[in-house]
């Protein structure tokens, strides 16, 4: 799962899309997901990393992750998601 080309992400989770000029703030979990995406992790690896860290089941993480990716897609920060 990759962020679109040239998307800038700060350490504080501030995301800037230089193509549209839009900027976004994410919460700590969003920051973590974006960081994992920037590291080139696949969706499964992101789910696994979140399961290791948070006491919740895989279905919940999958659902929340889908919602998050849908949001990234609608803001043109990623080109596709499952």
């Amino acid at each position, binding site marked *: 799962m990759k962020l679109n080309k*040239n998307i800038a992400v700060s350490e504080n989770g501030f995301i800037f899309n230089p*193509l*549209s*000029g839009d900027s976004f703030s994410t919460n700590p979990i969003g920051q973590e997901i974006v960081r994992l995406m920037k590291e080139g992790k696949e969706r499964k690896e992101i789910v696994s990393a979140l399961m290791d860290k948070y006491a919740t089941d895989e279905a919940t993480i999958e659902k929340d992750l889908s919602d998050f990716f849908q949001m990234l897609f609608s803001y043109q920060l990623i080109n596709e998601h499952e």
Partner: protein
Amino acid sequence: MNKRKVCVAVSGLNNIDSPGPGIPVIRALKESAEFDVRIIGLSYENLEPGLYMHDLVDKSYSIPLPSSGMDSLLQRLAYIHSIEKLDMIIPNFDAELHSFIKLGSRLKTEFGIATFMPDLETFESRHKSVLFEFGEKNGVIVPKAKMIYTPNEIYKVGQELGYPLVVKGKYYDASIAATPEQAVNYFHKISNKWGLPIILQEFVSGNEVNVTAIGDGNGNCIGAVPMRKLYITDKGKAWAGISLLDEELIDITNRVIGNSKWRGGCELEFIKTKENKYYLLEMNPRFPAWVYLAVGCGQNHPEALVKMALGLEQKPFESYESGKLFVRYSFDQIVSLSEYEKISTLGEL
């Protein structure tokens, strides 16, 4: 490095809520790495804020309105030149450009004053009323538009273009009309202020993105920086904006500037649709009021303009920084009555 001294006259000192480009152009010139610039302000009204910005404007003169005719303008410029020895003039008002383009060769031959503007034919070719044809010629999509002189024409043109449509003034102002009645209302409102004709333009939905650019007149785009407005005033002016990294927009700009052989500064206003299509809404024939953002992004367009006007080599800028913002502010200057009196009575400050 010893900077070359140049004396540049600049108009558009109306740094108000709908600002002219004069003060941003002056700021850019004052930061020039190559020129030590003396700025002569040219004003039309005695309360143009730039008149009183003495850290930026070294001396100011009032000049006659374009409606006074070119002879009186030339006479006034000759007087100013006799005192200031101008090297160049950068006019920044849409309404005055026609006169300055026509006077350009006389200013150069009779007084040695340089300008750097398109020829009259190129200038007229991007006029709002013929922009559709300009787009076809230069490979850029332009919304359909019709020029009208009476409100009676609105009903027929409205059927062709559909609603909503955009009602525009010849030089300034634009409103979106959802019905023929609204269009008639805007027709009167805008024509009362700016005169005729009025332009009716097809409405295109999307995000507005603008480019400040400069061409050398030989088909080369010397610089271009795209920007999206982040905060818009009730007059539709950008109060804050951010530079974009948009290669397609730069390509389109290069094409428009190159094909039209544009000479001088300009602003291209686009709508980017959801389908990522770019529609050219307007091409303003002078720098925009946000041109200082280009300086902040690494491209000093006003300095490049002066260089080219003086016959110096100016290579095209190769890059700029995206993600740079400008945020305007308002500022109350305290002005002594004697200063106001001086510009009001003597026409000089």
